[in-house]
């Protein structure tokens, strides 16, 4: 059993925040069991509803996408009233991603979600690629993220996981992961869209296969420095090979984002391929890719 599993998160394949719609849209492609048992991170939920940014929100670039979606979401109340119950009924293991413009908002979100039935855990979005533009709490130094995590952890039951989602910034990632861990994060999700620009210069975040080598470097460095901290690799996972690269580098699980936009069955395929039965040992072991080698 991986460290993350014992912490209550089966993995090893999760839906990344913001790339699974409201969950409903993913269901037709989620495989024979639908969303049952699927680790689904919701899009980031804020206290108040957000309409999201103007179009074009998502533009194609070589190897990936640049996005500035602007965290469209119905706000916490509406989410609790409609989307969450649907997801719980559909059998998903729901990790709610939260984003706030102040530390107090993060704490507020955590407190109210701690009482909502069916919330398996929280993912704290503290590394959005354009937090300033999006009006989110600004994370300049690792201790900023750590204080958000501490605030969330205080409000959320200790038997349920709190994941800190960090930007794959190699010069700060080890310090960031360490301080979030010390602040009470059960695990760190390493990888978010990388701060980037649209071809016209507008600020956005780069995601997809293009960023995989960047997030992988961060996972490897964190795992080397903090081998006991469970990590989740996120960035460019689209096939078994790219998933295994993270698992081999020490990640306990991976999240799939952009790949779902290209092929909504990606998570179903990876779940099947990485199911515990496919492993040899007691935990989840990387399994060989049944498809021909690509992009070595």
């Amino acid at each position, binding site marked *: 059993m991986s460290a993350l599993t014992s912490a209550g998160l089966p993995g090893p394949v999760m839906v990344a925040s913001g790339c699974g*719609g409201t969950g409903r*849209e993913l269901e037709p492609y989620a495989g024979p069991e639908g969303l049952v048992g699927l680790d689904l991170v919701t*899009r980031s939920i804020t206290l108040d509803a957000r309409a999201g940014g103007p*179009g074009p*929100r998502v533009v*194609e670039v070589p190897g990936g*996408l640049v996005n500035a979606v602007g965290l469209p979401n119905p706000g916490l109340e509406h989410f609790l009233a409609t989307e969450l119950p649907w997801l719980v009924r559909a059998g998903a293991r729901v990790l709610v991603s939260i984003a706030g413009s102040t530390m107090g908002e993060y704490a507020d979100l955590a407190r109210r979600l701690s009482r909502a039935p069916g919330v398996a855990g929280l993912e704290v979005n503290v590394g959005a690629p354009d937090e300033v533009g999006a009006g989110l709490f600004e994370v300049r130094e690792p201790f900023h993220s750590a204080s958000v995590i501490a605030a969330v952890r205080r409000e959320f039951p200790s038997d349920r996981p709190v994941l800190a989602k960090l930007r794959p910034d190699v010069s700060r990632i080890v310090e960031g992961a360490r301080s979030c861990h010390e602040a009470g994060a059960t695990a760190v999700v390493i990888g978010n869209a990388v701060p980037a620009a649209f071809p016209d210069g507008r600020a956005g975040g780069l995601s997809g*296969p293009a960023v995989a080598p960047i997030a992988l470097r961060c996972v490897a460095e964190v795992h080397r420095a903090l081998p006991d901290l469970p990590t989740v690799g996120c960035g460019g996972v689209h096939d078994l090979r790219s998933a295994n690269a993270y698992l081999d580098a020490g990640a306990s699980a991976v999240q799939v984002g952009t790949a779902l*936009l290209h092929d*909504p069955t990606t998570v179903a395929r990876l779940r099947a391929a990485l199911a515990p039965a496919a492993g040899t040992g007691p935990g989840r072991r990387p399994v060989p890719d049944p498809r021909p080698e690509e992009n070595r």
Partner: protein
Amino acid sequence: MADEREPGRGSVHPSVHVDGEVVATKRVGGYRHLTLTAPGVPERFRAGNFVAVSVEGHVARRALWVHRVRASSAFGPTLDVVVEARGSGTAWLAAQPVGARIAITGPLGRPFALPKDAVSCLLVGEGYAAAPLFPLAERLRERGCAVSLVVSAPDEARLLSALEARRSARSVTVLTADGSVGQRGTVADHADDLVRRSDADVVYAAGPHAVLRSAAAAAERAGAWSQVAVEVPTPCGTGLCHGCPLPVVGEDGVERVVRACAEGPVVRGDRVRWDDL
């Protein structure tokens, strides 16, 4: 926006993601018509649905209107799409030979809402986007509606052939901006006249935003309903990414931004905030 239409596809018609195959390809004027197998898609199709297709080496999907479905053929059920090669993806698609395999997701999006009664319908389509009106016309005729079809284009090369539609439509009007065939002019020029002459209770429109807007406005002026099929860039097409904002006004009068691919692409014309699009 869910009020004015049939029950959502949701659980009734879940979409599928399948490995399709090009079984025929034909150049028609400036367009390429592809016939594709896509197991499960033709079976679930309703007029106004689109499919999202993968383009080699590209992450974002390309949306294509379904122009026609055949329940059976030598290849089993098939669907037809009309491709105008403009950018990287449509150029790649238009060049695919018979036998090429293409990942296809569909059917996607909310289809055209159908009237309960046998009323008069005006269907207005421009360019390749007229494609979804042909199966709509058939369906409306089956319901006993009187169908008037308007096919418009900048020029003859980009005019979808209306020959086959003559079966389903009471009248067919052809408009080209340059007057190369049919009447000269744009939909905006003729919208009021067309609505009046067809005595339409419902106006269906598909095409560039200007076409939709003028059709919706003409419908409103004539007291008719309108249904418009709005194209905005749809990076995934499946409702997952929230990357296809469509600004609308809800039934409650509240301004909202919905996903064009999931809450649209077909919406009521009077609900679109055209100026914010």
